[in-house]
C-alpha cells in the first residue's frame, strides 16, 4: 500500500491570542492510496483546521506553528506558494460542505469545469474544454450532461452542485481528496448517493481520501481508518471496524454511545456530560478530563502519550484506556 500523505506533529496556533494553546496540537496520521481516513470530531475539535493546515489555506488570523506534511515524499511546508497553488486542485482536491464556495454563480458549469482542465492540465481550445466538461459531468452521473453543461449553478439542486464540485476536484485525477463535511447540508437520501459516487471514483483511481465528518454512521460505512479528534488532538486512531467494536478512549466510547440508533433502541442515551472545549482553550492535561468519568489527578496534570497496540495498527492517547492489556 502506497502512503500518499503523512502528517507529522502538525501544530497550528491561533495567532490572535498570544500564549494560548494550539488549536491543532501535535496531530499525526497517514493516508494510503485507495483508502479513506475518517476525521471525526465535534465543532472546535480542530478537524477542519487540520485540513486547512495541510493545504496551507489558513486564514491570515491564524499562523502555522510547526510539524510537517509529507505528500508523496515531499514536505508541503517547504513548497513555494506558487507550487502549492498547482498542487491544490491538481494533485490534491478539496470538497467543502457548501459546494457554492467552489462554484462561481456567474459562469456556466461548462465554463468552470473546463477552466480546471485549462489551468491544471493545459487543455486548450473551446471545443476541447467543453468536451472535457461534458465528460466530467457524465463521470459524476449528472443526467443529460450535454444539455446541462451550459446551465448556471442556480439551475442545479444542492446534490447536483455537490456532484459538480466533486467533478471539478477529481477531474485532474488527484492522488488525495479531502472532503470536509461533504454531505452535511444534503438530504438524507442524497447523502448516500454522493458518498457512493466518491467511493466509485476512489476505487477507479486508487485515490486516497480524508473524510471529515461528525457523523459516525458515515464513518463506519465509508472509511477504512478513523482518527477521533478532541480539543485539537487525535485521541484515538485505527481501523474503523476495530474502533467501533472496541473503543479504547473514553471519549470515543461516549461518542458512540451518544448517537441514537434506530434498531437497537435504548431507553436512554448514554451522555457525555459538559461542553466540548473551545479551540485552543484548555489546560496542560488531557482535554477530555473535565468531562471524563474516569479522570484521575494525573489526567489533569499531563497529556498522555500515544499508546500503540494491536500490532501498532491502533493508537490511543489515554492514561487508562479501556480493554487494553497493560
Amino acid at each position, binding site marked *: 500500500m502506497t502512503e500518499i500523505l503523512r502528517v507529522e506533529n502538525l501544530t497550528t496556533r491561533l495567532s490572535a*491570542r498570544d500564549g494560548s494553546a494550539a488549536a491543532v496540537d501535535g496531530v499525526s496520521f497517514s493516508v494510503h492510496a485507495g483508502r479513506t481516513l475518517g476525521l471525526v470530531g465535534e*465543532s472546535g475539535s480542530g*478537524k477542519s483546521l487540520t485540513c486547512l493546515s495541510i493545504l496551507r489555506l489558513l486564514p491570515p488570523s491564524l499562523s502555522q506553528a510547526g510539524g510537517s506534511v509529507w505528500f508523496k515524499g515531499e514536505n508541503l511546508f517547504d513548497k513555494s506558494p506558487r507550487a502549492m497553488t498547482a498542487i491544490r486542485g491538481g494533485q490534491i482536491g478539496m470538497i467543502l460542505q457548501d459546494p457554492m464556495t467552489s462554484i462561481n454563480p456567474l459562469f456556466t458549469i461548462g465554463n468552470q469545469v473546463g477552466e480546471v482542465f485549462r489551468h491544471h492540465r493545459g487543455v486548450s481550445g473551446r471545443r476541447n474544454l467543453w468536451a472535457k466538461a461534458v465528460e466530467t459531468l457524465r463521470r459524476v452521473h449528472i443526467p443529460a450532461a450535454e444539455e446541462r453543461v451550459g446551465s448556471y449553478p442556480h439551475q442545479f439542486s444542492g446534490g447536483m452542485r455537490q456532484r459538480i464540485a466533486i467533478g471539478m476536484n477529481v477531474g485532474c485525477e488527484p492522488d488525495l481528496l479531502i472532503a470536509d463535511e461533504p454531505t452535511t447540508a444534503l438530504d438524507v437520501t442524497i447523502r448516500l448517493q454522493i458518498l457512493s459516487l466518491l467511493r466509485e471514483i476512489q476505487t477507479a483511481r486508487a485515490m486516497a481520501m480524508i473524510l471529515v465528518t461528525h457523523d459516525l454512521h458515515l464513518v463506519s460505512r465509508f472509511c477504512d481508518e478513523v482518527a477521533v479528534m478532541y480539543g485539537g488532538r487525535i485521541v484515538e486512531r485505527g481501523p474503523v471496524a476495530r474502533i467501533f467494536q472496541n473503543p479504547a478512549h473514553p471519549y470515543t466510547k461516549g461518542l458512540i454511545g451518544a448517537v441514537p440508533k434506530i434498531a437497537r433502541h435504548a431507553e436512554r442515551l448514554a451522555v457525555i456530560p459538559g461542553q466540548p472545549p*473551545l479551540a*485552543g*482553550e484548555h489546560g496542560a492535561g488531557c482535554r477530555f478530563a473535565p468531562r471524563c468519568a474516569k479522570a484521575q489527578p494525573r489526567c489533569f496534570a499531563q497529556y498522555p502519550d500515544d499508546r500503540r497496540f494491536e500490532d501498532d495498527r491502533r493508537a490511543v492517547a489515554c492514561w487508562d484506556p479501556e480493554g487494553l492489556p497493560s
Partner: protein
Amino acid sequence: MVADALSRTEPVTSAPRRLPSLRGLLRRARLALAVSILTIVVGGALLAPWVAPFDPNAMDLGASLQPPSVEHWFGTDQLGRDVFSRAIVGGRLSLLIALAVVTLAGSSGTLLGIVAGYRGGWIDGLIMRVADIQYALPPVILAMVMVGAIGPSTTNIVAVITLANWARFARVIRAEALSLRHRDFVLLARLAGASHLRVVLVHILPNVRNTLLVLLTLDLGLIIILEATLSFLGLGIQPPDPSWGTMIADGRGYLERAWWTSILPGCVLMLTVLAANLLGDSLRGDGGAEDAR
C-alpha cells in the same frame, strides 16, 4: 464547517487576557483623536461666549485683513473681525443645526425604516418610493426652491437638510428590520402574543442600535458640509451671524491677499467632519466585533 470552526475560536465565557496588537493600538489612537477633536470643537462652541477672545461681530476696519498673529490667532477678515472668534461662534450654529438635523432625520428615518421593513407590503413600497424620489433630488436645488418660497432662516435650513437626509436612515434601517423580522425570536415573540409595538421596541430597535449609531456619526459630517454649502451659497445662515460656510464664502474674494479668512475656518470644518467620520468608523469596527461574538 470552516466558518464554524473559526467562529468557535471566539471567547465565550472567559476571554484570556491578550496583549494589544499594533492594529488594536492604532484603532484606539484613532478613536481617541476623533473624540478629542470633537470635544474641543463642541466644547468651544458651547462655551463660545467665554472662550472667544473677541466679540465675533465687532468690526475694526483699521485692523482689517491682518495675518494670523499672537493677538489674532486666525488673523482678521475684511471688516477687521477676529476670525478665530468667528470660527468658534460659527461652529456653535453649525453644530447646533447638525445636531438638530441628525436628531430629526435620524428619528424620522429610523421610524419610517422600521415601519417599512417590519410591516412590508404596500406601506414599504410607498415609503421606499418616496425615499427614491428624495434621493433623486439634489439637496441644493431642494434648498433653493424652499428658501426661495419661504425665505432663509435657521428653522428652514434644519427643515431642508432633514428632508435631504432622512432617506438614508430609512433605507439602511429598513434593510436591517427586514432581516430581523425573519429571525426566529420575532416569530416566537409573536407566537407568545407580543404586540407589534413590543416586538419593535424589544426585538427590532435594540438590534439596529449599533447601525444607527454609526449612521448618525457618519451623517454628522455630511450634514455639516451640506449646511456649510448652503450658507456658502447664501441660502443658509444669514450675515452678520457667522457660520463656517458664510465665513468661507466671505473670504473667497480675498484669497490671494488674505488666505486665512477662508482657509482657516475651512480647516476647522474639515477637522470636525474628519473626526466625526473617524468616530463613525471606529464605532462600526467595534459594533461588528460585538455582533460576531
